[in-house]
């Protein structure tokens, strides 16, 4: 094989909506030299289609393939500038270059090792899959195990570099990169992003036309030569057993990138991509099973975008994140166990068959490594950081909500009989509205880094995000909210009514409810009661629903005990059996739980299996409470008028919520505003509502950035590659088609010297991370 280099791009295929890794051998410009490898997002993991190795997130996938080729012809390489960047500041600077990163530099103010090698961008027609939709980078030789990836999605492309702190790697120095592993390690506090969002220009297109990219592919032979990669030696042993990149799958720092444990990490001894010194390999070998002989197989619960795993997948061993969190951090204990080299975690080998006997064991891994859990932590951390727009939004809400809930409790305590305007449904509705708002605010603000797409497979994204929202909004309010809801239900008498009905049904429940199938015995009922008790301990509506599903499964199992002949047991038999179990459990609080789920779960999830069984429980409660239940000649199960009205109102309201939620989304946007004034610079995410003039936004900027003379400052946006004054009539929705990479808007002195700014952002003089901290 020719010694060669691989440049790569991770993109999203616009027609199949799947992510793919496009790799190109730079020595050969022909389209045929482009290899596309679909990325499978299954069972909470990312994997190349033809590979057996899967990774908990996209970053680690790319990191791994920078080190080991596995199914690729060669390991991937990062653009040199990124590989060479030795500090957070430098990466931050790159991230602010946006599309300009790919331009050849005219003024080389950096050392020869820095930005010298501009990448080549090949363009392919957008939204075609067959044509090679490749944008590849061409950089000088230089190896790195740093992680970079470029993600572009749809027509609204964004480009990201991620240089995650969890990569504890040795950086290869330029001299003899293939032979010497210099063990200089570096770490970065935060991952970086480069955003490029020029609408059409970023749609990857082929053929070599430069399109609207600021710079075209250098055609000049001299340039070509300059860009010619330094030949590398091919891997001496393409089938080596050791996959050193496995080290990047180390869990801890990735899960909590900003936590203190990050600081205590020992470097991973990751062998260089090629010709790894033997001793390193040996060291790795001790810990890692060869990927060909996987020792860990992780079969994750395939949630398939549904709110809950199906009943069949559920058993009592299922874990509930929201409950676990209240116990002393099981993960930490797990990982504190003495381990020869705790940094290493082998890539997961995809289980291609059924979940089988590994399922139970894997449940543990699911809860340790699940990307959604990682996402939840990142979001939670962000939500506590008041300096972030998202954090201040969440914290302000929680504070306000606490006050309101305390007021509810105080009212109830002072005069239990007095009419209260607050209802439990009203409280929950308010929470739901905020959850939806915060959810899209987070996505819109772009404050989450690394971005969501790299953390969680597409089909699990919504669920994971929703869970994260529950964690950062509902968890802090759990105890207070529970008390307030209970008090409100006491006031309206609903729990007492149910308690009475439950008592009335105790005797002869089987006959009254018309149970014709098997029901759980006393122990079975006790188990269900425990599920109900657990339900009250968790803040998460999703976990509550999982428990509810377990409850229903227990009922169905017992039904089957009588019907083992394969006779069908339908809803006709299930409903009475479920009602019977609810009566036997005699837990009136179930009413609160059902209401909590009905109000807080996304309406779209209520059509799924969880929704079905939640509906069944609700129906059972109606059945139990129906006034005619005792009289045999009147049909039981009749809904009271009250219940019917309530139901109708509920349905109408929930769908209205969905509608208004969408309108809100269209009518407000988060805008990133870059502020620069002399040495001062900062980026803030601000909210811009429809109807607000750009002047109002400018005023907001003035106060946000503490500008004393607002008249000297103007808002700019990038339009057609140039900075222009933001028109006064501009509206949030216009931003979508105008923002091009980096901060969406800039708030600058009216006499701002743009040439200086350009150099600033390019040369890496802007360290936004620090300037933010200064505030």
């Amino acid at each position: 094989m020719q010694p060669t280099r691989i440049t790569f791009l991770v993109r999203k295929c616009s027609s199949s909506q799947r992510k793919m890794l496009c790799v190109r051998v730079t020595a050969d410009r022909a389209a045929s030299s482009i290899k596309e490898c679909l990325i499978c997002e299954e069972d909470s993991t990312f994997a190349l289609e033809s590979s057996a190795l899967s990774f908990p997130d996209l970053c680690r996938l790319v990191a791994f393939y920078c080190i080991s080729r596995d199914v690729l012809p060669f390991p991937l390489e990062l653009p040199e500038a990124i590989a060479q960047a030795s500090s957070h500041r430098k990466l931050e600077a790159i991230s602010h270059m946006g599309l300009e990163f790919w331009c050849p530099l005219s003024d080389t103010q950096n050392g020869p090792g820095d930005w010298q090698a501009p990448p080549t961008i090949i363009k392919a027609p957008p939204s075609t899959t067959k044509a090679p939709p490749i944008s590849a980078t061409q950089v000088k030789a230089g190896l790195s195990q740093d992680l970079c990836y470029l993600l572009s999605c749809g027509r609204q492309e964004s480009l990201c570099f991620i240089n995650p702190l969890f990569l504890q790697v040795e950086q290869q120095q330029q001299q003899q990169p293939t032979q010497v592993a210099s063990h200089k390690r570096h770490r970065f506090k935060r991952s970086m992003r480069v955003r490029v969002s020029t609408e059409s220009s970023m749609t990857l297109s082929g053929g070599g036309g430069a399109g609207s990219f600021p710079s075209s592919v250098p055609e000049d032979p001299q340039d070509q030569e300059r860009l010619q990669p330094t030949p590398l030696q091919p891997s001496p042993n393409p089938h080596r057993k050791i996959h050193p990149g496995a080290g990047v799958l180390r869990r801890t720092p990735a899960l909590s990138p900003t936590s203190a444990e990050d600081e205590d990490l020992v470097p991973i001894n990751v062998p260089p991509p090629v010709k790894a010194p033997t001793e390193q390999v040996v060291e790795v070998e001790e810990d890692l099973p060869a990927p060909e002989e996987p020792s860990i197989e992780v079969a994750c619960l395939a949630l398939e975008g549904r709110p809950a795993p199906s009943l069949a997948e559920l058993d009592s061993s299922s874990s509930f994140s929201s409950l676990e969190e209240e116990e002393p951090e099981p993960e930490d204990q797990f990982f504190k166990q003495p381990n020869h080299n705790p940094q290493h975690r082998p890539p997961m080998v995809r289980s291609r068959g059924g979940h089988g006997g590994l399922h139970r064991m894997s449940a543990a891994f699911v809860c340790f490594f699940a990307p959604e859990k990682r996402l939840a932590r990142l979001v939670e951390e962000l939500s506590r950081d008041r300096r972030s727009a998202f954090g201040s939004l969440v914290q302000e809400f929680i504070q306000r909500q606490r006050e309101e809930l305390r007021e509810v409790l105080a009212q109830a305590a002072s005069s239990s009989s007095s009419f209260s305007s607050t209802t439990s449904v009203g409280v929950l509705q308010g929470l739901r509205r905020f959850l939806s708002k915060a959810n899209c605010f987070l996505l819109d603000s772009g404050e989450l880094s690394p971005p969501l797409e790299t953390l969680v497979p597409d089909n699990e994204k919504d669920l994971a995000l929703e869970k994260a929202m529950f964690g950062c909004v509902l968890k802090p309010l759990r105890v207070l909210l529970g008390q307030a809801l209970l008090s409100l239900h006491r006031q309206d008498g609903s729990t007492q009514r149910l308690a009475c009905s439950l008592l009335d049904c105790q005797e002869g429940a089987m006959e009254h409810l018309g149970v014709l199938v098997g029901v759980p015995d006393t122990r079975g009922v006790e188990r269900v009661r425990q599920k109900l008790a657990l339900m009250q301990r968790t803040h998460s509506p999703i976990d509550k629903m999982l428990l509810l599903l377990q409850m229903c499964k227990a009922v169905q199992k017992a039904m089957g005990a009588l019907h083992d002949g394969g006779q069908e047991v339908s809803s006709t038999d299930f409903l009475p059996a479920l009602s019977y179990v609810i009566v036997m459990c005699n837990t009136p609080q179930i009413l609160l739980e059902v209401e909590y789920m009905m109000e807080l779960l996304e309406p779209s999830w209520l059509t799924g299996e969880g929704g079905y069984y939640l509906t069944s429980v609700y129906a059972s409660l109606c059945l139990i409470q129906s006034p005619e239940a005792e009289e045999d000649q009147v049909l039981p199960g009749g809904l009271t008028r009250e219940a019917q009205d309530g139901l109708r109102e509920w349905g109408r309201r929930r769908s209205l919520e969905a509608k208004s939620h969408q309108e809100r989304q269209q009518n407000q946007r988060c805008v990133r505003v870059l502020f620069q004034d002399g040495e001062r610079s900062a980026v803030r995410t601000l909210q811009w509502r429809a109807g607000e003039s750009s002047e109002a936004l400018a005023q907001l900027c003035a106060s946000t950035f503490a500008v004393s003379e607002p008249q000297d400052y103007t808002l700019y946006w990038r339009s057609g590659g140039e900075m222009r004054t933001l028109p006064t009539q501009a509206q949030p929705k216009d931003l979508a088609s105008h923002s091009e990479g980096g901060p969406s808007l800039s708030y600058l002195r009216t006499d701002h010297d743009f040439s200086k700014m350009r150099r600033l952002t390019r040369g890496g003089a802007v360290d936004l991370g620090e300037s933010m901290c200064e505030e």
Partner: protein
Amino acid sequence: MATGGGAGNKTYSFKVVLLGEGCVGKTSLVLRYCENKFNDKHITTLQASFLTKKLNITGKRASFLTKKLNITGKRVNLAIWDTAGQERFHALGPIYYRDSNGAILVYDITDEDSFQKVKNWVKELRKMLGNEICLCIVGNKVDLEKERHVSVEEAEGYAESVGAKHYHTSAKLNKGIEELFLDLCKRMMETAQAEERAKGNGASQSTTSRRGVQIVDDDPQAATAAGGCCSSA
């Protein structure tokens, strides 16, 4: 993030409720549909490839089943809600059929009474949910043709008069079930698409209407923001 309206990135989620008297074969019907593997020839002639996956409860204890389909390139997730058929549970109907996109009303061709019950359901559904719900009237147990008590003409005539489609099925012989569900899916998709058009630019939005049509983009947020989501970061 999925943005734009690429034809491939849309998943329809439909809720279908099964209504009908007890013992007409509602549960058998849906079990037959969801648990069988499909590689019938007629499917390929309809240019629809089927991916079947049983997603939930083991064995024959189903009252909720899901099915994933791919119809002319569009992904469809079908959630089928079985209901308790006995008359005494009739009042619970609204809880179950709320937000349904389609309803399958099953009667037993040997049982005149069960057909009357279907008529009652139709009246109720039209009253509660209007004309947008896709109704299918299904005469089950055609394997018992000899004992037929509901005439084909009457049943089909009635179905037409109320804007429903009529089907004859046999869960036992696996007859007519595939067509029933496929037709229903197509009709629900048409309804959903018509609704999208009515909403103008709502092509990529998720549900808004009371009807609960779920048009779930991979990322509704990104879609509604006219592709601006990524760049705002």
